[in-house]
């Protein structure tokens, strides 16, 4: 028996139990992956924690009240904090932005998906991406100095010819820094995101249906109406809501082109509007401790509203994308 035993390494154990290194790896990755959940929870917690006094003392009046008055000890008046007017103003400019921006964005997405020749399509996709990367302070500067003079003129025309509609009525001839102009700037800011989401959803329209429509003699528009829109409706709605979420949270651009007034007005051309995010920046500089807490509470409301809008938008988009 002189067979040489080859110098084999010890047999490795075949097992499904993860090695130690994998356990460490998985623990680190899981911790990292869950940290964004933790951050979101911390944001909510700290804003509530700091704003708790205000929620307690103001109650529901915080959401519905119009007044934002600091306490004045010499007159013995308590502080009053209500973001009702600002919340209403935020919704008004958000809906204006969606009303103006979404049709243009969907049209542009249709153009990119079905109308544009290849040599226009590629650069224009890049251009839309570039637009999404423009910082909001740039939109503010441009909106204030370049768009505002034009928009003022448009507002005058709208008032002149459509003034009988209560929304376009003007109690005083002050056309600058109105919700209408803020809505225009926001519309331009949300166009890139709505365009790219609509385009992604349109791209998932089943090709056989498109070809079937054409084979039955449909024009391009009949095809879009019969195939693309029914399939992409969810994507358009979701994209619009995502745009709405952006518009509701926008701060700096709105602050530069909107005159903050603590009042609820339905005249969108008038130089008086509201925005929770802009109000926070506006009041932050000279806020004392109680007012700071009120701002934290306002931030929490804004956080919850945008989170809710984003949740719904993402659910709709994910559902549409899966169906396609």
């Amino acid at each position, binding site marked *: 028996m002189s067979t040489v035993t080859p110098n084999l390494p010890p047999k*490795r154990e075949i097992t499904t139990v*993860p*090695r130690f*290194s994998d356990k*460490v*790896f998985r623990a*680190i*990755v*899981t911790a*990292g992956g*869950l*940290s*964004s*959940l933790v*951050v*979101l929870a911390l*944001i909510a917690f*700290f*804003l509530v924690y*700091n704003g708790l006094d205000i929620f307690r003392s103001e109650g529901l009046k915080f959401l519905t009240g119009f007044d934002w008055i600091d306490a004045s000890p010499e007159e013995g008046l308590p502080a009053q904090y209500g973001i009702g007017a600002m919340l209403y103003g935020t919704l008004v400019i958000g809906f204006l932005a969606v009303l103006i921006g979404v049709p*243009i964005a969907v*049209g*542009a997405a*249709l*153009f*990119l998906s079905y*109308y544009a020749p290849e040599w226009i399509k590629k650069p*224009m996709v890049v*251009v839309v991406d*570039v*637009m999404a*990367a*423009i*910082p909001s*302070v*740039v939109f503010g*500067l*441009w909106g204030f100095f*370049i768009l505002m003079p*034009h928009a003022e003129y448009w507002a005058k025309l709208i008032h002149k010819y459509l003034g009988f509609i209560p929304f376009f009525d003007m109690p005083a001839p002050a056309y600058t820094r109105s919700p209408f102009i803020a809505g225009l700037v926001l519309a331009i800011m949300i166009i890139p995101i709505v365009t790219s989401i609509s385009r992604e959803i349109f791209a998932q329209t089943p090709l056989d249906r498109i070809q079937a429509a054409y084979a039955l003699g449909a*024009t391009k*528009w*009949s095809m879009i109406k019969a195939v693309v829109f029914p399939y992409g409706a969810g994507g358009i709605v979701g994209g619009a809501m*995502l745009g709405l*979420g952006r518009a509701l*949270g926008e701060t*700096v651009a709105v602050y*530069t082109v909107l005159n903050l007034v603590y009042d609820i007005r339905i005249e969108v051309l008038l130089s008086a509007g509201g925005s929770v*995010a802009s109000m*926070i*920046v506006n009041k*932050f500089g000279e806020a004392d401790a109680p007012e700071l807490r009120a701002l934290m509470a306002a931030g929490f409301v*804004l*956080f919850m509203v*945008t*989170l809710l*809008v*984003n*949740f719904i938008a*993402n659910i709709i988009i994910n559902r549409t994308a899966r169906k396609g």
Partner: protein
Amino acid sequence: MSTSIAPQVLPEKPWRPTFKRVLPDLFGALLTAVSTVLIVAVTPLKGKLGFSLTLIAMALVFSVLISGVRKDKKAAFNSVSTVFVYIAATFVLIPLFSILYEIYSRGVGALTWGIFTKDMSLSSADAPVSEGGLLHAIIGTLYLVAIATIISAPIGLLTALYIVEVKGRAAGLVRFFVQAMSGVPSIVAGLFIYAVWMIGLGNSYNAGAGAAALAILMIPTVARTSEEVLRLIPPDLREAGLALGATQWRTVAMIILPAARSGLITAIILGIARVAGETAPLLLTIGGADAINLNPFSGNSSALPYYVWKNLSLGNPESIERAWAGVMVLMLLVFIFFTLARYFSGKRTGR
């Protein structure tokens, strides 16, 4: 030399529009242009607005007329929608080109070597633009972006790895919340950092706090883009690694991450481009300064968006000019990041 003399056959391209088929469109465009010029010249409609409105109206009228007369009602609807789609595409492009043009024409005058080498500590706000500069703002922005990247890049990458590679129990939940997190208003991130860093821990303004706020906004961009990149890695690579007996850790570290490297760099740069221009959180966290501050964790600091904001609120003509110069430098910076991102994403094979 082969000398086959096959007859030259030109391929037929029946889908190519012939001149005869384009003719009605050309005719319509000509009618539109002529009638618009005529109407603007004759009626009191004036200016760019009057001209564009007339142009749109005329384009609609003639496209409907021509296709309606030549074909039927469906064709007329089709031309109306085509006109609207082209108008929408134009409306998307107009603001962008207007913004780029105005930034260039208003910012380029103030763009001298001096603004890259000096700060504002020795110049008053209403001094001519040739005095002072924005070096302090550039340095501040670089600090902010660097620290924000150091915080958010690992978290973003780990989040993407958790969703795609580890596929943990909460992967769907994490993915959903990261999607929602990208919609968190920037001002809320600033308020949060203020609540923790200033109110909670009693610190004062500094660049580190601003960077923490920016990191919150940067995580979702990095995480979502890296997730998409990791999904594009073919599963064969993963299986090959595991089949060779590698642990998951070795597979990810030695195979997946190197294969996805340029895409992951793109993800990080896109995140940087997203936060480099953020203004609102900085208003609550960095305090603002006119002099260079080389310590990001102590003392007030400035940043390019903050510089633009401050000069815009000062409101005198010199400040406004400074704001435009600041915007131009900021946009140059964002475009550099953006081009880098596209360069790296173009390098990726398979797409």
